[in-house]
């Protein structure tokens, strides 16, 4: 009955740029510090070749050199350069870690702040892949790529600039490689994104096939699927190997050109420099220094090109991460004008899915604070639609839904959270002590099996230690409810999968453990109806009857018919009461 799952938005390149710019503003001080310190480090590093050039010139001209002074200068420049470079690099790496942590927290915070409507409608698989594989994809670029790009840009720019200061004519030779690098890199980047995406996704598929096999070990063993799974895994690995060939093919074409771009400047500076020396337009020392500079930028240049390529695919991942923050929109629900004695008011509410007829028609319902209401009706009568309206997932076509505070909707979905059993419970109430936790477990009927676990409340769940069965996970979800003590509790078939005894125990505990809560229950079993203050019967989208269980039974209306049918079916099924 729910709306189809949809994907969260994906932020465009502009939004990614804006976010990057905002981060730059936020860390302007640190960035300036990194760049400044590194610039000084590079400057110090540029001194030795220049001094060496000086020595060469002096010796070639047959003049003397103050060797101890020059050598001491070189040593000092190198030590200073290394010390500053270490400082700048450490700062840059720390900044990368900080920014990555911020992006990760921003993403989770945005996710946690999504409007209820979005939360219920998003595709969980989409969100999961954004929080894991997309985060991984930007992790390297933010933590290593950004710092190295920062450092590399400063190194290359300063070195080339210094070469021009030293001798502009000779330094012209430095630029000869640029067209090769620019043109070939553009060619490469245009193709690389898809090639790498294909490689990554096929590799993820192969790893996924393997871990799926382990996750489904029970089925593998009981259905004797070892050989079949091995075949699936082998095929997916072979496919991944095929896909991985494409980026290599691209690199095979791109690398020669880009490396030509790196190496040509040294050669040209030497040949062109030799010509200039012979025509007395420069000194041999300047040529030597600039040739040495061209060799020293090879590594930072290589880093820059590498990260430029990487940033292309990271932009896509970044767009998917930032998309979550764009999925805004408000929760549209009138919380005003609610009678203080009431927990819920439905005022002439109608609702339709798409263009089909009304799923709910002109529904009027008032629930007092602390009241227990059970909504019953045949399958397809509109019970789930009603609970989604109450939870704020759907908005009425006409009429108004007013609810005091936030409704806690418990549907048939469980999740075991990373950490201990205690962590799983204290999500609902962080300050709860052991006594409260055990009481909640008892109400949910889970104290028995928990007591039998090695480690009790501290046992790690999910992984190797203890993997709760679906029924146990359900009980933990219910125990969390008892801890949370919600104002308005909306239960949609919340006890599915539990035994009769466990269901009855839960129903009884509900009244004892949550005396102040307003409870609205949607159920096809009529157990809950017998214990409720008010029973509401829905048929074909209309409220056809409401009152206490006894009163409605006495009325011989739709409820008593429903109840009779349920009793009969139940007895036919041979239940023992």
């Amino acid at each position: 009955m729910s709306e189809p799952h949809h994907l969260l938005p994906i932020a465009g390149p502009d939004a990614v740029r804006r976010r990057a710019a905002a981060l730059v503003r936020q860390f302007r001080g640190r960035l300036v510090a990194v760049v400044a310190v590194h610039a000084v480090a590079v400057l110090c590093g540029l001194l030795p070749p220049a001094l060496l050039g000086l020595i060469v010139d002096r010796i070639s001209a047959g003049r003397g050199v103050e060797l101890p002074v020059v050598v001491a200068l070189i040593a000092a420049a190198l030590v200073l350069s290394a010390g500053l470079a270490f400082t700048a690099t450490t700062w840059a790496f720390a900044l990368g870690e900080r920014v990555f942590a911020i992006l990760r927290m921003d993403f989770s915070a945005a996710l946690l702040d999504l409007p209820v409507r979005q939360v219920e409608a998003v595709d969980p698989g989409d969100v999961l892949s954004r929080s894991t594989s997309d985060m991984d994809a930007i992790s390297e670029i933010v933590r290593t790529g950004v710092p190295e790009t920062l450092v590399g840009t400063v190194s290359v720019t300063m070195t080339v600039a210094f070469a021009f200061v030293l001798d502009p004519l000779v330094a012209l030779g430095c630029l000869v490689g640029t067209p090769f690098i620019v043109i070939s890199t553009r060619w490469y980047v245009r193709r690389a994104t898809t090639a790498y995406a294909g490689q990554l996704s096929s590799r993820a598929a192969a790893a996924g096939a393997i871990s799926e096999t382990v996750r489904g070990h029970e089925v593998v063993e009981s259905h004797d699927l070892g050989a079949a799974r091995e075949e699936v895994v082998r095929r997916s690995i072979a496919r991944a190997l095929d896909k991985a060939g494409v980026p290599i093919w691209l690199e095979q074409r791109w690398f020669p050109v880009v490396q030509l771009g790196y190496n040509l400047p040294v050669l040209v500076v030497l040949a062109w420099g030799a010509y200039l020396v012979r025509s007395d337009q420069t000194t041999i020392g300047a040529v030597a220094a600039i040739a040495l500079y061209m060799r020293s930028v090879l590594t930072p240049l290589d880093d820059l090109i590498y990260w430029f390529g990487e940033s292309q695919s990271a932009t896509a991942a970044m767009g998917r991460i930032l998309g979550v923050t764009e999925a805004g929109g408000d929760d549209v629900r009138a919380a005003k004008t609610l009678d203080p004695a009431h927990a819920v008011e439905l005022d002439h509410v109608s609702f339709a899915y798409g263009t089909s007829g009304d799923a709910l028609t002109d529904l009027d319902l008032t629930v007092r604070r602390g009241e227990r209401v059970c909504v019953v009706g045949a399958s397809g009568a509109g019970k789930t639609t009603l609970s989604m309206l109450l939870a704020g997932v759907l908005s009425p076509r006409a009429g108004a839904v007013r609810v005091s505070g936030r409704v806690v909707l418990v549907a048939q979905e469980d999740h075991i959270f990373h950490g201990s059993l205690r962590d799983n419970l204290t999500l609902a109430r962080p300050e709860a002590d052991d006594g409260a936790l055990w009481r909640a477990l008892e109400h949910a009927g889970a104290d028995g099996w928990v007591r039998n676990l090695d480690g009790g409340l501290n046992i790690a769940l999910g992984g190797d230690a203890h993997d709760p069965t679906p029924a146990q996970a359900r009980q933990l979800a219910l125990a969390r409810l008892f801890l949370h003590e919600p104002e308005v509790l909306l239960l949609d078939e919340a006890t599915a999968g539990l035994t009769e005894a466990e269901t009855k125990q839960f129903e009884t505990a509900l009244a004892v453990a949550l005396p102040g809560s307003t409870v609205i229950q949607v159920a096809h079993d009529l157990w809950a109806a017998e214990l409720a203050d008010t029973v509401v019967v829905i048929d074909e989208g209309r409220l056809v009857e409401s009152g206490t269980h006894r009163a409605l039974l006495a009325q011989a209306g739709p409820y008593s018919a429903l109840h009779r049918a349920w009793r009969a079916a139940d007895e036919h099924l041979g239940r023992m009461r």
Partner: protein
Amino acid sequence: MAGHSRTEKRSLVLYALLSSISAIGAASQPWLIGQILEAALESGTARLTWLVSAMAVVIGVGIACNVSRHVVAERVKLRLAADLRVRVGAKAARAASDVAGHTSPAHVATVASSDVERVSSYPVARIRLLSSVLGMAVVVAYMMTISPLLAVLVVVGVPAFIWLTARIAEPLEERQDKHRDSLGTVTALSADISQGLRILRGLRAEGVARARLDIASRATEVAGVRVARIEALLLVSGQLLPGLFLTLLIWVSSHLAASGQLSAASLVTVYAASGYLFLPISAAVDFLGTRSGARVAARRTVQVLDAPVSGWAGSLAPIPSAAVLTDTVTGIRIQPGGLSVVVSGEPESLARRLTALSLESGRLDDTALRDFDLAALRASLRYQGARSTMFSGTVRELLDPRGSHADAELEDVLRVAGADDVVARLDGGLDAQVYADGRSVSGGQRQRLALARALLGGPSYLVLVEPTTALDAATEVKVAARVAEYRKGRTTVVFARGGAFRAVADHQINVDDDAAADQVVAGGRNE
């Protein structure tokens, strides 16, 4: 993880050869630079032209070798990683339960996705280090022609620096380990927020979840900075140590040059060559980083590959098709050929014993299940637990992983399990793609698909645990009746708390879990 195949060995030799040529080429560039500068000061163009051309050739050959060795290395790494992945995958498939019991699916996922890559980048890194040492030998050789004293300095200095670098890198491995662990926690917590989002919102536990993530995130950041500090130190020491060495070289060689024992241009050669000494050192840094990463990864990989496999001794076949299935712990007896409903407080463990999925397993007549041949037993005795685990693939692959059944049979079991409408609604029918985590189908739909999978092929004995909990009452009754009809004549055991299966059962057995085994109430016919 030694022992490469013949092809890999040949590729590695080729890689070593190409690396050596490019290392020799790169190492001879400083000499050429010095010679070109010297020639620039002389008159006459012949020598200069010759030297510049030689430099061009050296650069060209260097590029060719570099590119080819990169391609060879990437291919080797890919193949090694793929081989390792196949081994991990085969182990995971052949001994899924043992691997799951010994590690965790998340662990296996990390091994299969990133650890195998780290392990397979090790052999190439080692050769890169060796070839750069070869390059150093070239440098030493022509240093020898310039000045033996300088050559001795290089020979003593570079290994000393490599040793020093290794010392600096020592804490790296442990710090990387810690960082990976805490990153794992962060990933798990943020995956939790995605998967449990509705629950967290319902409980207003956003703050708690955010606080937990925040703590883990801070710990990761601190661990990351600790790793980065060592990395920065390695990076810088890779420049500083040779830099100081260089100063020494310059000092010595400048003296030689000033006294006329060395040409001024050779001074540039010495400088550029000592720049080349950076390379073995940075290769050593790379190598040490790769090695420590590979060690951690290899340990994790071995943990999967060496997960102890539980044995299976039995070899009896064929399996009798109409024997009494007995549980030795509770003593319950399942009569052949009918549908038995069992009510037990611990259905999973009992059902697993009845299907030889746990060590204490049941019997068929007088023969222990574990005395039968494993493959034969699995073909005729099947278990479907309460978790409706599925594998990604088409519906057809999901139902029939071995591809041994006709479409008509698939449609038959889908109908019996009430899943025909599930498949009809999927785009592509039997060829529709479904995903393991079941995000493309709902819980009820998964359960029906899993039931259909269990029914396919008609095993002689079928044990189902709570197969219809996620279905509404009407569908549940319909499915139970169809299953009973479809399984007529074969033994079916259903652990169910609801009444739907009881209504159609031939036998009902209530297991009093608290009491001793002999207090089992054997149910009569329920009609």
